[in-house]
Every structure is written in structure tokens, then in C-alpha cells.
């Protein structure tokens, strides 16, 4: 199937925000190539007329929640887990505006 190479690994690292050291890169390249070629096995199966399964239990529908407001976590408890906070907000390094 598709060849999996260093460039692709780098792209994945960027997309998932997980950069790799050169040792990790080598190992992952080898492992992922192995796994992906194994996974290509799926092409042995004809699925042309098969619909994809997104939910394993059929005929269920999303339950709807009443519109009743409730504060669930007190701010102090939320901030206690935060690596850095200021003025009640989570603190992060300066963000270049308009990036979203």
C-alpha cells in the first residue's frame, strides 16, 4: 500500500504535537511500518457494498438533557490541578493573536 516514511512521521508528529527524537523516530518508523503493512490485510476483504459501523449498538438515539444549569466544579478545585494559573484563568505563554 502506501509507503510510510520519515516525512510522514514528521507530519504526524506535528499534527499530534508529539515531536520525536532521532532514536524514537527510527524505532517508530520501523514499528509503524510493520504495523501498517499488517493492517493492510484488511484489503483482502471486499467491503464495496458494506456500510461503515459508527455505533456498535444499533437503533439507539442520543438522549436529550433538560436545560437546567448547574455549576459542577468550584473554581479552586479546577485551578488546583492547573500547572499555572493567574487571576482565576489558566495561564499559558503569549499566543500570537488571530491564530484560530
Amino acid at each position: 500500500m502506501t509507503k510510510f516514511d520519515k516525512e510522514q512521521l514528521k507530519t504526524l508528529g506535528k499534527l499530534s504535537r508529539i515531536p520525536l527524537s532521532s532514536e524514537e523516530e527510527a524505532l517508530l518508523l520501523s514499528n509503524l511500518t510493520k504495523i501498517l503493512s499488517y493492517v493492510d490485510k484488511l484489503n483482502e476483504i471486499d467491503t464495496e457494498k458494506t456500510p461503515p459501523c459508527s455505533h456498535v449498538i444499533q437503533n439507539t438515539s442520543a438522549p436529550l438533557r433538560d436545560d437546567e444549569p448547574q455549576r459542577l466544579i468550584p473554581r479552586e478545585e479546577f485551578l488546583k490541578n492547573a500547572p499555572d494559573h493567574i487571576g482565576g484563568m489558566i495561564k499559558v505563554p503569549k499566543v500570537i493573536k488571530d491564530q484560530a
Partner: protein
Amino acid sequence: MYKETAISLRDRFLNSDLTALEITEYFCNRAKKLDPQIDSLLHSLSERAHLQAVKLDKKKKDGKALGKLAGVPIIIKDNIQIHGEKTTCASKFLENYVAPFDATVIKLIEEADGIIIAKSNLDEFAMGSSTEHSAYKTTKNPWNLSCTPGGSSGGSAAAVCAMLAPLALGSDTGGSIRQPASFCGLYGFKPTYGRVSRFGLVAFGSSLDQIGPFARSVEDIALMQEVLASHCPCDSNSLNHPKEPYLDELKESIQGKKIGIPYKLLEGLNPEIRAKFDDALDVYKSLGATFVEINLDLINYSIPMYYILAGAEASTNLARFDGIRYTTRSKKAITLEEVYELSKTEGFGSEVKQRILLGTYVLSAGYQEAYYKKAQKVRTLLINEYQKAFESCHTIALPTSPGTAFKLGAIADPLEMYLQDIFTISANLAGIPSINVPIGFDKDNKPIGMQIQGPQLDDARVLRFAHHFEKEANVFSHPPLFDKEVK
């Protein structure tokens, strides 16, 4: 006391033979003394348990109604949230994370007066089949301390096996309850998908995950399921199904019932495991069950399907661990990008990174059709295959694992590790209930297990088949190293 089942401990508490405090202190002490040999536990909750035991004793004294798990000490896998306690998922990333809420299963256990005494070890974020990927400890198999207890719920399995508690909860995404149950000679049950709430379970494979119990008797499994299997409004996939009296339903006879066997899949199976599997089928025969051949050839494709689908879901489920709101944050990070990248680099172990990258790949532009969508289609075919099989049988029997507990460090090749799950994954892909039943030992005295699987929502039937086997076969035993009192 350590050998007692949950039901017998509860009954002894109810008839005032033992107090909740006595039971709690006994097991907390036992865990403290013995766990260093197996490293199954990450945090002791003994102080909390102590307070709850005192309260429970008072509740009993006041004549109030008591729950089904009254006085029973329970261990919880450390990927399930307990309000005010740490949930690390065996990752450095969540080293200091304290849960801001209770998982539904915790609320249910405590409403039933169960007493939680510890959080147990796992493969980091439940990704693994040996518990070797924990960032904190390597858990050992109580049957053989140089071997793995299996994974990812290895801590819970080892703890129940060593009799540190009669009941523990694990989570099962591709076999993470059943495979360790098999390696440790325990009953380990994965319910129908959606039968037990996932609210408060740190998500790995959202369409595959289920919480389930480890125990040393099927009745204890049934007891726990009576408490846990109910509708939860906080989980949109929770089945709208009432609680079931699983214990009562165990008794019904299985005389004349059909068990489907996928004989083709057994070709090439380890001969010792095959021999014990055939012995187990003889037991079922003596119980009046008959056998029919079924086709489950698509199980051969379980692993590719699983690694694509679980990987894809996990890559997004783990995106939230990012150094921003509640994980550790790299001290070296200066820019925002560094916060993400360095924190993730330092926080995640290598197996987790690998799965996230794989999952990102199969969802990315240009590859999603070939990988993710393809796997979803094959999943539909597998579900259909199971449905067809169940048209001709009541339950299906197949091995749990292709081998017994392997030596720690023995498997380095990721593919070889993934192949451990070959028999268990399909139940998660199809959303069906499945239990591991201990059926004997290999020549090294390592446990061998077998699975009983049933159609969606036929959890009671699966438990019933396991129960009858347990009563008839009488093969269950305790690891000699831990079959002793401690001071």
C-alpha cells in the same frame, strides 16, 4: 478471611460476624504487606476506606438498609475517577492529577456500601497487554513473579489473584480484563457495550471500552454486575435497560443449550491450551450442552481493525492531555507550541506515543478512506458474522489468549504484543458480553483461560454458562505464594 468471596464477606458482615472496620483493616493490612511482592497497587485508599467502614458500621447499628456490597473491600483500576483521589492512568502526565468528580461506577459501588481500598496499576492509559507500560511500577503475576499478569488491567487482576480483595474493577477495550483474568486464573467479565456507564472512565477507545469486574467466583461477578449494570444519564451510549437480577439468573439449567465453536480458529493453537480447551468442552458436554461449528473467520482481521479504530479514537481521546489545564507541564517550555510538544514528549510513554501517531495517521487526509473507513466497514461485517453465528447457538466458546503468562520483558515486538489480543478483540468490536473462565494450568503451573461469549444484552446467559462450568469443573485454585495469612 482472605480467601472469602465478596458474597461470603458481605454475609458475615450482615450477620455481625465481622464489622466493616475489621474487614477493611484486614485487607488494607494484607495489601500493605503483600503488594510489594507483586506491585499491583498505585495508591492505597486506606484512610478513606477506614472512614467509610466506620460510617458503615454505624449505619448498620442504626438499623438502616444496607447495600448489596455492604462491607466488601474493592480495588479500582487507576483510570477510573474517584473524587478527591489521584487518577494517574499509570502515566507521568497525570502524576498529580486529582479527580474532580466520581465515576458513575464509583457512585454505584458506594451507594451499595462497597468499600474501595486502593487504585491499581495498569498499562499507561490502558494501552498494552502486560502492564509493563506503566510509568510507575511493573506488576508481577502472583502465580509466577517473573511473569506478567497480563494487561492492561494487570494491577486489578494480580490484586484479586493474590487475594488482596475479593473484587476489583478493570476496563476492557480489546481484552484488557479477560486476558489478565486468563493469565491470573480469575473470572474477568466484559459486559455488553453500553451496559455499564463509561462516565468517569478515562477514555481510550470510546466505542470499545467497558468497565467490568475481576473475581474468584462467578457469583461475585454477578453481584457486582447487579450493582453496575444500569442506565446512566451522563453517558449517551448507556443502554436504556433496567437492572437485572444476575444472581438469580445463574441458576437456570444449560441442559440442551448449544455452544458455538469456531474450530477453524483453533488450528495452530498452543497444544497445552488446546488440550485444556477440549477438557473444558467435555465439562460442558457433561452439563448437557451440545456443540455446533460456527464461522468467525473475520476474527483473523480483528487486530488490524482494532488498531485502526482504537488508535483513531485514542488519538483524539488523548489529545486533551496537553500541559495546559491539568496535566504536568514541561518546565522547559517557553512558547505555547513548546508547552504542547515538550509536555507531551515528557508526559507520554513510548507505547502511548506510538498509538497516538498511528491513530492520527489513519484519520489524516488521504488515508482516512483506506484505513479508518475500511476498518469501520469490516467491523460491520464482523458484527453480522457474530449475529449469524448466534442464530445457531446460545453462546460461543473460544480461547482467551494464544499463550499463558509470558516472562516480563519477553515481548518487545509491538506486533507480537498486539497478537496477544487475537481472541479477545472481536467481542469489543461487536459490543458483545464475554467472560474469561479459568479452565486449568499449563505444565509450568500457569493458568489457562477460556472465553464464553453471548449476543448483545445476553450478559446473564454468559454468566450462567460460566457459573455452571465453575460448579462442575472445580478447577479454580489459589496461587501458593499468596495462599497464607499475614501478620
